[in-house]
């Protein structure tokens, strides 16, 4: 029987991701795992992430999961969430500069502190419900209203000029990539597992996705 692997690097709250996925699929088993074999044999892989990019990559190597994750990124439907989106880019400024997986073209940088918009201080982290403007149609956007709000919490953001990979943009003083797509890989900066019904809808679309766009 096929299963969905949620990559566990031991840092974040994966309970919610697991529960939310279980809510949207009756057929597939959800396995939260640090075992490369379980990732390699999965039908779908979820790459969540919290905390800092440098320690995320250190944990990836300490758990010996880099090869399995890289393999999944070219073979099966993968959903990156939060840091799992940022890790797909070439480079992040976080932790004194961190090299990413380079699946998506672009870089990750920090929101400026003390930036004001209409005289209001833009707080960092960018935390709360913000609008996600879809840039093109994609199986993962099925049934999700364009411009609806999802829940975000992050201090770094991805920017890219590769239009074909920008699945959605969000504005917080500046425009950043809130969803990215590249063949069998889809990634979101927001937390679908914390975004009410529209979040569950996106997860449902993911577990039903065959990786083609």
């Amino acid at each position, binding site marked *: 029987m096929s299963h969905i692997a949620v990559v566990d690097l031991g*840092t*974040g*709250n994966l*309970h*919610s991701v697991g*529960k*939310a996925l279980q*809510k949207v699929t009756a057929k597939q088993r959800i396995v939260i795992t640090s075992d490369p074999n379980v990732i390699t044999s999965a039908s779908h892989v979820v790459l969540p992430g*919290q*905390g*800092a990019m440098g320690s995320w990559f250190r944990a990836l190597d300490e758990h010996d999961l880099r090869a399995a994750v890289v393999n999944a990124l070219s073979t099966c439907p993968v959903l990156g969430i939060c840091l799992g989106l940022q890790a797909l880019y070439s480079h992040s400024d976080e932790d004194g500069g961190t090299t990413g997986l380079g699946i998506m073209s672009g870089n990750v940088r920090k929101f400026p*502190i*003390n930036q004001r*918009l*209409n005289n*209001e*201080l*833009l*707080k*960092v*982290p*960018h*935390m*709360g*419900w*913000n*609008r996600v403007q879809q840039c093109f149609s994609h199986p993962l956007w099925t049934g999700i209203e364009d411009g609806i*709000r999802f*829940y*975000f*919490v*992050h*201090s770094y953001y991805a920017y890219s000029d590769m239009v074909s990979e920008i699945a959605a943009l*969000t*504005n*917080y*003083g500046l425009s950043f990539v809130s969803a990215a797509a590249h063949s069998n890989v889809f990634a979101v900066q927001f*937390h679908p*597992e*914390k*975004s*009410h019904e529209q*979040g*569950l809808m996106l997860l449902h679309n993911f577990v039903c996705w065959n990786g083609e766009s």
Partner: protein
Amino acid sequence: MALAKRIIPCLDVDGGRVVKGVQFVGIVDAGDPVEVAKRYDQQKADELTFLDITASSDARKIMVDVVKAVAGEVFIPLTVGGGIRDMQDIHQMLHAGADKVSINTAAVDNPYLVTEASMYFGSQCIVVAMDAKKNGSSWEIYTHGGRNPTGIDAVSWAQKMVDAGAGEILLTSMDRDGTRDGFDIELTSAVSDAVSIPVIASGGVGKLEHLVSGIVEGGASAVLAASIFHFGEFTIEQAKQYMETRGIEVNL
């Protein structure tokens, strides 16, 4: 600006049960955290905060089960506070399904805990809760549920906690808490202006206009309230509609 201001209902939990009389029409068990959380989720709450008011460490385990049960049913962010002492407590709550933990007394006793926790778990999940009371022209931090004065100035404490790695501040005015006279706007705006991270205003909400002034005059990113929602006076949705008519962006 498209980021919505947040409304966060706060639930006091004692021994695994919601206390302080939540009164919803048609709710079967008003003490059941899962049922209450579901109801707020339906009303479009932006997040939920659970405050564990249990003193004993035995009941702490019950709180972990509460978090697990709620996180399995409600898919919006959950914050858990009350009695969080060390890295082990934080790990337990996050592992059970909490998205954030709020640290109050332990941050005063050991500010390094905030640094250690934010480095390990990420600052996005570390909320520093501050109980502040007016003292002359400034505000003083109190710990242990508002029992112990510390002599620490609230504004400088907030700044110190940002430097330590806090991702958000939950600011409660002890002078206003329970009064229904509205937030301490001066306090809220003094702290909010002094820090780069989001501030949640808390303490004193008695009518919808108070939520508006917390955001507009206080500069808060979110407002926390208990009784006006618990007793069914207003739903979260009604509160959001009201705020929207006053020009505040909300997630409706």
